[in-house]
């Protein structure tokens, strides 16, 4: 589903990703961990070209998005993204946040978009908030709306960049539960996270990144319990 070959990304002279190669299958849940500044977000953002790709290939469902001729807007319809700070549209109601893309990009009718969006809000447990504005929601509720918004385009892949890092601890569980449901439904997911419990329980594979490199990839057991990499060990000892 996602095939990354020798991906390099530089900001000016600063090479942030130094040649990443990996394959992610359909329905797989991959958790990306690593120290701050290691390039996790940058890697994720290269997967929907929110960052321009310096060199290498990123093939999403058969389409190489590193190719400037690719219609990236088309590809992005299939790749949802959830951000650490939610980035909900503050001038739109919860329902309007979710219906915007189906209406404007897919040209669904108001009725179609509305009923589909209400279903999605039900799925994340927020049907009763449809007419509220984002400013009146808690962080956990905001993030669940953001997930519903991404799902409104029926994506094949969902990218999550530290979706629970900005939340109060007691709100993290609701968001993780929604993500777990998604995983169980067979969504292909790439999740940058510090939630090791989630990675162990839901993740099929864990990527450990450091200094722009994929130091290690393997099942959660392999990475968390049997790693032979010094850098992985020292990182895990700091966060566990």
């Amino acid at each position, binding site marked *: 589903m996602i095939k990354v070959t020798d991906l390099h990304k530089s900001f000016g002279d600063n090479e942030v990703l130094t040649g990443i190669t990996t394959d992610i299958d359909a329905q797989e849940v991959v958790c990306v961990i690593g120290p701050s500044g290691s390039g996790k977000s940058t890697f994720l953002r290269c997967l*929907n070209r*929110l960052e321009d790709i310096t060199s290498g290939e990123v093939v999403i469902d058969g389409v190489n998005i590193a190719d400037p001729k690719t219609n990236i*807007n*088309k590809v*992005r*319809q299939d*790749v*949802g*993204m959830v*951000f650490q*700070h939610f*980035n*909900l*549209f*503050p*001038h739109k109601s919860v329902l309007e946040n979710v219906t*915007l*893309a189906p209406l*404007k*990009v897919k040209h669904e009718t108001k009725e179609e978009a509305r009923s589909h969006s209400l279903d999605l809000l039900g799925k994340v447990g927020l049907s009763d908030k449809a007419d509220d504005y984002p400013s009146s929601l808690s962080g956990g509720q905001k993030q669940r709306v*953001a997930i519903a*918004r*991404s799902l*409104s*385009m029926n994506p094949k892949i969902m990218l999550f960049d530290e979706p629970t890092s900005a939340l109060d601890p007691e709100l993290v569980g609701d968001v993780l539960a929604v993500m777990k449901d998604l995983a169980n439904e067979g969504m292909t997911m790439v999740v940058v996270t510090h939630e090791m419990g989630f990675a162990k329980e839901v993740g099929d594979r864990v990527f450990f990144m450091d200094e722009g490199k994929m130091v290690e990839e393997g099942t959660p057991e392999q990475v968390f319990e049997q790693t032979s990499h010094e850098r992985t060990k020292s990182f895990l000892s700091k966060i566990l």
Partner: protein
Amino acid sequence: MNLNPEAFVDIIPYLVTGLWYTLIITLVGVALGCVLGTIFGLMRLSKNGFIKAIASIYVEVLRGTPLLAQIFFFHFGIPNLLGFNLDALVSAIVVIAINSGAYIAEIVRGGVQSVDQGQIEAGRSLGLNSRQTMRYIIWPQALKIMIPPFGNQFIISLKDTSLLSSIAVAELMYQAQTYSSITFDAFEAYFMVCLFYLMITIPASLLLRYTERRLERS
């Protein structure tokens, strides 16, 4: 003391005429200024260096020269060079439009830039193209940010029209000057003209403050 109480009333019909001119010049001028300001403000945000440079030159030249110089340049300078005459009212509206446009361009640029970058990313990652993201996500939020400084600019432009008396546009200030030069009731004339300006600017700034408070709450 040399006070002529009747002059306070006498001058009113002239000032009412002047007020219409002032209002029309300001409203039409600033409306056109909004169009110019939006175009040049967005040009200043362009990634294309050439487009950006044109907009920057416009903004810097207009903000870096006195309005009175702009009025004379446009009303006397350009017609003299090209050999035609301009109606003073036309010059007045055009100069207010070009001048307020430069300031509004900066308001537009600031408004768009102060919308969180994450909003663009959220829109684009949903598959909206850059135009749709601008139209449905960035612009509505930017407009809200732009309202208070825009209201300010409107009040400034309204007061700026007084300089148009120098090219004999029949606005408020010109009426007061003319009246005073005929009757020699200078105190009465200029007192009343200030009162007329305040009649517009005070309600305008109250309305502005009210709108600001409402925007803050929402």
